[in-house]
């Protein structure tokens, strides 16, 4: 039986793992290669690395980091941050990344999704969507959460999926860093309308939150960062809990 995936996310800035709340108040959370190895040995099903300060001059550092990670990690991993064109994808895939994640660039130019999928296959294209609830509905936000748009997250997710995305990584900005549980409503709505796997992100605080998102939505993966980085939740205990609750999980 196919297993639900537990995915630690490492936000990378200047080669270090960092974590903020509501995308702000950034704190240092350790060496990404060491953390990656630790999460793999603890039973993480995949890893995601998002370079939050990816600029032209920092690209080489990121590519070196990706190849260091690839040489010690034997589970699938996704790399995102600053990808603008298919050449950026090639350098990350050649360095050992299994998938790449695109966010604002895909929203501004949806053809990027089909271009990457045509060369590298849909399975390697993760479209990341940052969404915020404005009191009425969930809307897409760009540039690491700094630029709101008037496009509904559900509409963009449908379009990204039909453009060739292999996966949707859906982050609720209202929930990010709050440890109050995943945004079940929008995760459920999007997972119901797209034909690709959805990874829920933002708000993980305790094992029950993971149980909720796997039972109340069709998300096939759940992502968390700070609860893992700061040791509040360990992957073995989380996975044992989910398995005891009859969630299909890899132990």
């Amino acid at each position, binding site marked *: 039986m196919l297993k639900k995936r537990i995915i630690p996310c490492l936000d990378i800035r200047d080669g270090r793992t960092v974590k903020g709340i509501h995308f702000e108040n950034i704190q240092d959370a350790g060496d990404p290669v060491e953390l990656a190895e630790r999460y793999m040995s603890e039973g993480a*099903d995949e890893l995601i690395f998002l370079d939050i300060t990816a600029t032209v001059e920092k690209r080489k550092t990121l590519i070196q980091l990706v*190849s260091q990670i690839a040489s010690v990690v034997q*589970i699938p991993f996704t790399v995102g941050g600053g990808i603008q064109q298919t050449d950026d994808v090639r350098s990350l895939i050649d360095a050992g990344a*299994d998938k790449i994640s695109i966010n604002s660039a895909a929203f501004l130019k949806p053809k990027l999704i089909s271009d990457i999928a045509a060369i590298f296959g849909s399975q390697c294209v993760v479209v990341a969507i940052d969404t915020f609830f404005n009191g009425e509905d969930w809307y897409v936000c760009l540039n690491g959460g700094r630029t709101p748009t008037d496009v509904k997250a559900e509409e963009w997710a449908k379009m990204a999926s039909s453009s060739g995305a292999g996966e949707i990584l859906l982050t609720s900005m209202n929930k990010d860093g709050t440890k109050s549980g995943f945004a079940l409503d929008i995760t459920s709505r999007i997972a119901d309308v797209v034909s690709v796997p959805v990874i829920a992100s933002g708000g993980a605080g305790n094992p029950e939150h993971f149980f909720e998102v796997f039972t109340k939505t069709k998300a096939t993966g759940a992502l968390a960062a700070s609860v893992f980085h700061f040791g509040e939740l360990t992957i073995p205990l989380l996975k044992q809990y989910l398995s005891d609750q009859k969630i299909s999980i890899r132990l």
Partner: protein
Amino acid sequence: MIAILKYNAGNIFSVNHAVLALGHKTVVTDNPDVLLKADKVILPGVGEASSAMKYLNEHSLDVVIRSLTQPVLGICLGMQLLCTASEEGNTFCLGKFDHKVKKFPPKDLVPHTGWNSVHNLKGELFRNINPGSDFYFVHGFYAESGIQTIAETEYILPFTSAMQQDNFFGTQFHPEKSGKNGLFLLKNFLSL
């Protein structure tokens, strides 16, 4: 020396690193002499069947691969290319395995992506690996079960997750991305 076939399919880096991590020397090559003389040959794979076969045929690597007598491991697309034919691009393949590769019916999310368990394990490739162990899969096409099947997995329908004919082995999953179980399997292959 472990030869990793260099062709127009991705994922070579990870396979190379996993084999190096197990303490073997590797060469990533499309040179027929080097392939023929290697102790073992691995056909990695992430890509599309018809363009991969076209590449192999144009470089006469199809003849070379068919003639290999040392242990050969095809991974994912590499395994599918060792079958008779694939519905992906209606491709005539290498024919080492008497299996056809078909497209998953769209009854669930396709491609089949993630960790899934293997059952009905047979042979040396799965030595010290328990039935029900999880491996990492990413594929939209599957091989039907047959007498060469040495492992089965269920997603939408039961399919062949590993096969063997003489010195040719294939896994639909990615051992190089399957954590400890994957390394066990690669170790088993490398110690054949």
